């Protein structure tokens, strides 16, 4: 009964990953397939590759900023929402709405919002808003500034995904029984102490899930980069997933693309497999 699905997953996930792995060890770096064995050469070349090195640094920067911003904003909003009883559903709906739309839509809109403007046009988007609010000194070149590059993409990604982090934390906060807080109050703990000693430690599993889910999203980030910036000046907003697509389907460097894909897969697996095994185990025990 589930054999068709098992076969489909076995072939289309595991078989294909295996085939991609094989391709990454060949010399297929032209239009026509060439399955001559190349060993690890594609990987060694990649680690020497100027663009790939930038991409790894960009992914690290993006992950760091995106994760920190999502966790901080998500947690703060959840903590605030817990106190805003009646208005909670309204605000929650607003904060989560970006999650329903495509990264492509987000990218198209934020490309205009973070457009730096020009001498003829004057300021546009967020820069224009800053001027109107008399904080013009905050104006920036955003994604056109190579020092910012990928971090501009991280702003848009945070806009889209921080509501999700909020939802996770909100569910976590709801799961903490009131008796625990009461007991701490009876013991003479202040609200601040309860927050630090009771609530924050109890939310650690939520933080872990959020880090894993958001972390694997940031390793895979692709659509948003395509729609918003592309590679950017000096590859300042380039990422491995985009490099893979570019080199494989536009440059016909299939073996190189396969190598990048497998590196990405290993990174995602390191992050998610222990979590996956652990979550399904504990569920079975329940």
């Amino acid at each position: 009964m589930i054999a068709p699905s098992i076969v489909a997953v076995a072939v289309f996930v595991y078989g294909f990953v295996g085939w991609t792995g094989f391709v990454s060890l060949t010399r297929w770096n032209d239009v026509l397939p060439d399955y001559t064995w190349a060993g690890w050469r594609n990987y060694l070349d990649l680690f020497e590759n100027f663009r790939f090195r930038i991409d790894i640094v960009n992914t690290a920067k993006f992950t760091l900023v995106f994760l920190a911003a999502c966790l901080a904003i998500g947690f703060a909003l959840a903590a605030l929402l817990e106190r805003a009883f009646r208005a909670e559903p309204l605000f929650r709906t607003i904060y989560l709405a970006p999650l329903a739309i495509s990264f492509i839509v987000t990218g198209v809109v934020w490309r205009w919002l973070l457009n730096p403007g020009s001498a003829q046009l004057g300021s546009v988007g967020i820069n224009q808003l800053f001027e109107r609010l008399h904080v013009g000194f905050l104006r920036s070149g955003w994604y056109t500034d190579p020092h910012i590059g990928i971090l501009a993409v991280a702003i848009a990604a945070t806009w889209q995904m921080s509501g999700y982090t909020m939802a996770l934390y909100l569910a976590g906060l709801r799961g903490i029984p009131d008796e625990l807080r009461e007991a701490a109050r009876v013991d003479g703990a202040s609200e601040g102490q309860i927050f630090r000693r009771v609530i924050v430690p109890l939310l650690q599993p939520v933080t872990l899930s959020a880090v894993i889910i958001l972390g694997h999203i940031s390793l895979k980030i692709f659509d948003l980069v395509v729609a918003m910036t592309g590679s950017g000046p000096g590859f300042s907003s380039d990422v491995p997933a985009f490099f893979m697509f570019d080199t494989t389907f536009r440059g016909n460097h299939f073996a190189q693309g396969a190598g990048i894909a497998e590196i990405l897969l290993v990174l995602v697996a390191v992050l998610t497999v222990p979590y996956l095994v652990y979550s399904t185990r504990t569920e079975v025990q329940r």
Partner: protein
Amino acid sequence: MSTGRAQAGGVVYALLIAAALFYLMPVYVLVVTSMKSFAEVSLAHMWALPSGVYFSSFARAWQGDPLHGLRGLGTNFLNSVKLTIPATILSSFLGSLNGYVLAKWRFRGADVVFPAILFGMFIPYQSILIPLVQVLQRLHLYGTLSGLIFVHVVYGIPITTLIFRNYYASVPTDLIEAAEIDGAGIWGVYQRVIVPLSAPALVVAAIWQVTSIWNDFLFGVTVTSNPEVQPITVALNNLAGSYVVEWNVQMGGALLAALPPLLVYVFLGRYFMRGLMAGSLKG
């Protein structure tokens, strides 16, 4: 004490409103810009309200302007509809079968099979794209809507399986045993007991699949190269990437692409949330 509490409440609301403004800001620009008339569209007045409601940007985004080489998104919107509906139905059906067997028929190796299926929803799809294109070309499905439907069905299996399995785990085993005493086999139990109970999980799975298939870009751009066949996300990206297209038309197109999933979210948000939570494996 009471004024202190009122002040604290005021601060809470002020912060919540500030956050809401941040989340709504891009939506504001999107909606306002696509409603402006062509005469009003200027980047210098990006934040200004429109003088009335004009649908010219939508019309241009939908129909395009063939004389000036501008392709409209109408066909692509319909492609996305034709793609999303069957792919959602098929992947939900497969997910329901898998979820049932994994939740209620503990076969040997199920503890390995389940996480192995779930891993399929975390992989970066770049790691399967090359063989995917090769196989679809062999099957003559490359570049077709059917090919894209097939891809979404296959890679939708992990998440739908997870949603249905978690839901079926809560179906009392007594019900199944009673049906078995009445002589029902594995299929009989599925048809008589499981299917009639499936509506809540089906809603969650279907909403999840509708939004993620509609919003997909990577599979669409890889599998379809002909603009006539492309889904709306791919066509929108092409439209927005071309510098000759006025930015209000880009915004009109973006709103067209955003509207279906946003409407689903607004009207069925509760179920959307459940899918979201299932996606984080917390059920």
